[in-house]
């Protein structure tokens, strides 16, 4: 028996959420008295793969062939399930990224495994196997009892801390046997905005709503975000009006995020908005209306006009950075 973690890469690199998944998988392996194997698919330098040892992977299976260069969930699921069987892994861990969402259910079906998506804590393995995940668009948590022998767990980004106390991993090539029918989909183009922090992965998020009046006023929001190294987000009416792209829309019908810091500027705090952001660790609200519902779920707040407050915040962040 072992634990297998899939380490998703983009352009040959791993993101922090992957180190979180490896650290998390290592902790599960320790609970189950076994070792952790990682599997990487695509073109990743061996130094990057060896480095996964730091987070607890003793062995890395490296799948690097031309057919599997770009992500096709059907083909990747076959490879990962095959590796899980060869390694005798009863637990497969991946990050609950966009790709992870297309992958985990397929691996689950192949392994007759229970799929637990969006886990936020380590499982409890005393006697049985229970694990906590978010439900009702982050309005609640559900503890799931797993009766299946095999489990596929996808970990919510930013829910588990990276632990670096391991050594180096041994890297082995893994040859997989894909069926031709795994390759029906063809990736024609990948468009990536590389100069920006991606919202689902971001530790810090600066978000703004209809209170900003119009798209021309987002300059100060972007400036504050850039200074903090934060991603930008927005409320639904803002993306509906095309003031900002849909990919920034957070909430019940947008994406759910759980950054360390969420700064909401000119957002009222409607229940559908809160659904996507309430698991943020620290919430700051800036709103000119002291009755705005968002203040009820905030840790810090300023009752004031965004157009006066935000420029001052920008100056304050600049001087903080200058002094540290």
């Amino acid at each position, binding site marked *: 028996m072992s634990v297998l973690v899939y380490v998703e890469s983009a352009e040959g690199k791993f*993101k922090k959420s992957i180190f979180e998944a490896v650290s998390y998988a290592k902790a599960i392996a320790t609970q189950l008295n076994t070792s952790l194997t990682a599997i990487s698919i695509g073109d990743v330098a061996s130094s990057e793969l060896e480095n996964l040892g730091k987070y607890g992977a003793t062995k890395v299976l490296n799948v690097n062939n031309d057919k599997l260069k770009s992500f096709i*969930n*059907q083909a990747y699921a076959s490879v990962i399930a095959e590796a899980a069987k060869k390694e005798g892994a009863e637990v497969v861990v991946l990050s609950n*990224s*966009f*790709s992870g*969402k*297309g992958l*985990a*259910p*397929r691996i*689950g*079906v192949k392994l*007759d495994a229970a799929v*637990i*998506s*969006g886990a936020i804590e380590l499982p409890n393995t005393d006697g049985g196997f229970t694990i906590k995940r*978010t*439900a*009702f668009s982050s309005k*609640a*948590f*559900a*503890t*799931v009892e797993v*009766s*299946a022998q095999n489990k596929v767990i996808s970990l919510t980004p930013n829910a588990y801390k990276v632990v670096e106390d391991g050594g180096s991993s041994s890297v082995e090539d893994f040859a997989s046997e894909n069926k031709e*029918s795994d390759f*029906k989909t063809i990736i*024609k183009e*990948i*468009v*990536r905005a*590389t100069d920006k*922090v*991606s919202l*689902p992965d971001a530790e*810090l998020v600066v978000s703004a709503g209809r209170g900003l009046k119009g798209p021309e006023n987002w300059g100060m929001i972007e400036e504050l975000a850039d200074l903090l190294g934060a991603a930008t987000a927005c409320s639904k009416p803002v993306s509906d009006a095309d003031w900002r792209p*849909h990919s920034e829309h957070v909430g*019940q*019908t*947008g994406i*759910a995020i759980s950054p360390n*810091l969420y700064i909401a500027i000119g957002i009222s705090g409607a229940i*559908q908005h809160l*659904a996507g952001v309430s698991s943020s*660790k*620290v919430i700051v609200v800036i709103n000119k209306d002291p009755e705005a519902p968002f*203040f*009820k779920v*905030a*840790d*810090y*707040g*300023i009752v*004031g006009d965004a157009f*006066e*407050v935000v420029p*001052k*915040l920008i100056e304050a962040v600049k001087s903080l950075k200058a002094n540290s």
Partner: protein
Amino acid sequence: MKILVCISNVPDTTTKITFTNDNSTFNEAGVQFVLNPYDEIALSRAIELTENGNGTVTVINVGEASTEPTIRKALAIGATDAVRINASPSDAYFVAKQIANHAKDQAYDLILTGRESIDYNGAKVAAMLGELLDIPSVSIIKKLDVDGDKATVEREIEGGKEIISIPFPFVAGTAEGVAEWKIPNMRGIMSARTKPLNVVEAIEVSSLSKVIKFETPAPRGTVKLVDAGDPEKLIELLHSEAKVI
């Protein structure tokens, strides 16, 4: 084109979520149930694609008779007919197995789901269906255009998108952007009453997991307000007290 849209019946987005039975069960008392918003957007795209007699749209729901108002709403929006698999869905795997069992000999060209259900949020049914039917699946998509015997879709990725060509039949989980929301008109509402809604018994599926306990997030302490004249103070608190910047 023959399209299947999977629809779920979920608590309205404004619902205050509470639990009963020692926090083991969602408290449905006083809760209004609606068509999952993402499924509504999937249905809207299916209807756009089959406009002018260019195909049919079947909606399918795994649920008890109480979900029928939601199914009728989907028919009012424009679905051709509906199937209800009579069971209380225990998890995504159960749902996917039932739908796959229905779809396996129906020769659908396209199966659409929402990106996720807003109650259990597993985002699992689409890819499970793809695997069970051994066809491609793609989620989460924001655009879907038909191009002969295949489709071009835009899949969301962190910080960008992928443009993918994918042959029919396949399964896709859809998000906002894929269509304009369709609002049922009077004619739709009238005709929905007489459109076929077939009730089918469920197949036996052994459960792999179950929810044993729910909890709501711990309430935050009261908000610490900083004077609007002194926003520097906020940055200082975030730095030295909350330690997040």
